[in-house]
């Protein structure tokens, strides 16, 4: 292996490592942000009134799949809420 090749490989590896960590952080942040969004949509289930409930009806089917991903992430196989039957 030539010196320049080695240098490039090490560079790539560091680059990959750095970006892997970076993307992981971003993904975690994205998940956290979306969980907060879900909470805002389903506030009423934790007893906080949400005046736009009626307008959110239009997006509920989209939210359903998000909710499914959330409870899987939380390590619950089936929907923990009787009101929301996503699976």
């Amino acid at each position: 292996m030539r010196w320049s090749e080695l240098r490039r490989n090490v560079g790539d590896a560091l680059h990959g490592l750095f970006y892997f960590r970076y993307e992981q952080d971003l993904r975690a942040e994205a998940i956290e942000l979306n969980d907060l969004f879900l909470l805002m949509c389903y506030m009423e289930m934790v007893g906080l009134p949400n005046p736009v409930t009626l307008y959110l009806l239009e997006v509920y089917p989209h939210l359903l799949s998000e909710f499914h991903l959330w409870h899987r992430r939380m390590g619950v196989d089936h929907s923990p809420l009787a009101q929301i039957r996503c699976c």
Partner: protein
Amino acid sequence: MLLADNRKAARRLLEKRILFFGGKGGVGKTTCAAAVALAASREGRRVLLVSTDPAHSTSDIFERQFTREEREILPNLFGLEIDADFEASRYIAEVKEQVSKMFSPSMVGAASRQIDLAAAMPGVGDVALFDRLTTIISARNSAYDLVIFDTAPTGHTVRLLQMPEMLRAWIDALAAQRRRAVERDADSRGDDGGEDQPDPIVSALERRRQRLDEVRARLVEHRDTSFVLVLIPERLPIEETSRAAGTLAEAGIEIGAIVVNRVLPDGLSGEFYAARRRQEDIYRREIDHRFKTMDRIVIAQLESDVYGLNRLERISAQIIG
């Protein structure tokens, strides 16, 4: 009584396209709204009189049945008594239909249950009522020259008018949160954005917001829209009307006129009358003082309560002449 002043103020009101009548319970909001609607329709304008008060009384005053759908009550005068429950169920039926077009049957089943549950939440009726109001207000090329809203007692109505502001704040917050999450998610997958599909949730929320903005634009600082506050010369209505005027001003909603309803007629005699009159004069001076910057319309009491076309016409005559 200065009929000329009434007439001038009423003329200015009739130049508007949307009028709200509000005030404390029992001061004669419906009577005044109905009298103005009747007068305008007699002048050949197409008028829609909408009652948003859950306890409707427009049917009683006209002695003709108003319904939850618009219908012609008298020539050129159309009536509508909004039924919040009916509007909520209609809205929900529409949403379900949309959903069934966009998603797989299994998703639709799950979503339907969710939608039914959400529909039973408190406050949904108010939003549905507001949604119907929105449709009437923002209808471009409206079929009517003048839409008059006979509203519920002040508190309810002020809340209704503040709704676009409040809902908008909520929708903005939701959309911003969702957008942040979606962007972060795209970053984490190395997408540089650009060519991908817009997020359906953000799009739906933005459509909503646009509609709210349209309504807000028609309600606030709009020369076609005005609010009429009705009161009677008594302590409690004066206080409540002052507060309502303050709230409306804060919300940027124009007050077209103050209607001083049910004042004692001139030219009566007797000790009882004289005593009432003295008391009333104090309150009327108070009203003149507090609302001096606004047009005032003064309506004298009739010898009987107001229902039926004949008596309504007599009130109309006092306002418009």
